[in-house]
């Protein structure tokens, strides 16, 4: 049995979530609830729950404000959010699970199952550090990215990624300083995420970080050379990218 508290500023949402948890997740017992950042903080301190269901936007601040007060984090978190572009991006970078409102019962069951099976404190903490760091500077180009592999999780800075290469449905990350990491997620997912940091998909199986481009070669075939000495082919239909890159470099 896991103890949980629900933090949301709308009474109806709390009631619904509690009802849903009773129906779909019998292994969760709700021990408390709160309606804001301040009350949420005292509620967590008092009850020390295993799980916290947290709404991102509340009257007296957002969920990040609450999370920043905990160091280290002592509970498992499931974020519940209606819609907030930058927040959802921050969760994705940090590989933190979140539920979208209105909550889909299947998603709720999956999220709860996930935390019931594996509670890894160091992993949770690492994800949170990344989340907090990303949320403090949402417009920063250099973000902390959490990569999950079979061995464990890695936190990397996006600036240290030279390029990503796809192999079947996995993605290999090549870094400036550490050994490559292979993650079982598609390159497309990372393209969507990392386009914020300026990453360029120049080929079906290559995503590159523009800050690590050394040279742009036009002839005989359009190629980009990165700092690791690798030459990346540029797809013919993406040849226009070269102009963009060159113009950026000249600045």
């Amino acid at each position, binding site marked *: 049995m896991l103890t949980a508290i629900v933090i949301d500023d709308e009474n109806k949402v709390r*009631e*619904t979530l509690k009802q849903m948890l009773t129906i779909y997740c019998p292994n969760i017992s709700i021990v408390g609830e709160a309606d804001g950042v301040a009350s949420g903080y005292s509620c967590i301190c008092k009850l020390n729950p295993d799980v916290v269901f947290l709404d991102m936007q509340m009257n007296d601040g957002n969920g990040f404000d609450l999370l920043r007060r905990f160091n280290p984090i002592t509970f498992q978190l499931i974020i519940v959010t209606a819609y907030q572009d930058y927040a959802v991006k921050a969760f994705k970078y940090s590989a933190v699970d979140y539920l979208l409102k*209105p909550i889909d019962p299947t998603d709720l069951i999956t999220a709860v199952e996930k935390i019931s099976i594996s509670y890894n404190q160091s992993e949770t903490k690492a994800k949170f550090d990344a989340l907090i760091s990303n949320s403090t500077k949402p417009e920063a180009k250099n973000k902390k990215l959490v990569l999950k592999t079979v061995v464990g999780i890695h936190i990397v800075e996006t600036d240290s990624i030279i390029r990503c290469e796809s192999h079947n449905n996995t993605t290999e990350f090549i870094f400036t300083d550490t050994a490559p990491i292979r993650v079982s997620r598609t390159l497309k997912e990372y393209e969507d995420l990392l386009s914020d940091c300026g990453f360029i998909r120049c080929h079906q199986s290559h995503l590159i970080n523009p800050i690590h481009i050394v040279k742009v070669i036009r002839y005989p075939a359009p190629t980009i050379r990165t700092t690791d000495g690798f030459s990346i082919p540029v797809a013919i239909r993406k040849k226009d990218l070269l102009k963009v890159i060159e113009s950026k470099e000249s600045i």
Partner: protein
Amino acid sequence: MYIKLHLPYHFNLNCIVMHTPLIYICFAAVTILLTTFVGITIYLYIKNRSITRRNLQVEQQLLLSQMNPHFVFNSLTAIQSYIFRNEAHLASKYLASFAKLIRLVLENSRIEFNTVEREVNTLRYYLELQSLRFEERFEYHIEVENQAEINSAQIPPMLTQPFIENAIEHGFLHNSSKGVLSIRFIPDHGKTLTIEVEDNGIGIEKSRQMQIQAGKTHQSLATEITRERIRKIRKSKGFTIDMSITDLGLTDSSKHGTLVKFQIPLQPCSPQ
């Protein structure tokens, strides 16, 4: 071959120029006129294209402010709560209101003006859903005086909605007592229609200060979008809608809240 071709031509032209200077002048004049004409056409085309683009942007912003994703998903969440409380009747009632509102907003995006009746209907569904979420936060009243007289007014769809949203989501937030939102449609001697949105929230000035204190560089999107709409109508339709925003606390310290007032001419007059 080159010379053969070139010479007669050269000779001919010289001939015309020498013997009939008038034709030469005409030729020059026509060239200048043609160039000017082409120039003006290109200028107007470019200008027109940028205006169209700007108009599209305003329309998109408007649609997004009326169908704010936050509002949409939070309304759906509120409806979900009735489902889980086994209140089928209320759940389906609010679901129907939500559907009606979306239908009206989608239709509004295709028309330029609403009648008072349609405008009031749209606002009613909108407020019904907002109060579903914030039932304890506020109550609302819509007053329509002498509807027959003002039904000829041309109201840009959901003109007041951005201000109503501001009042509900920001104005009432720090109220100790229940918020009251009044929306009034008042005819003025058959000449103008006055629409008032009054709330007893913290007031626009204080709200702005709090936003700045919280480190948010939030520009009032509501005011900005609405001013742009009014400007657009003045240009294309030739009548002016007056808008004024008053912080009630500034004029009378015993009061608090914001009053937004629109004055729309009942019979659209010509630009003169």
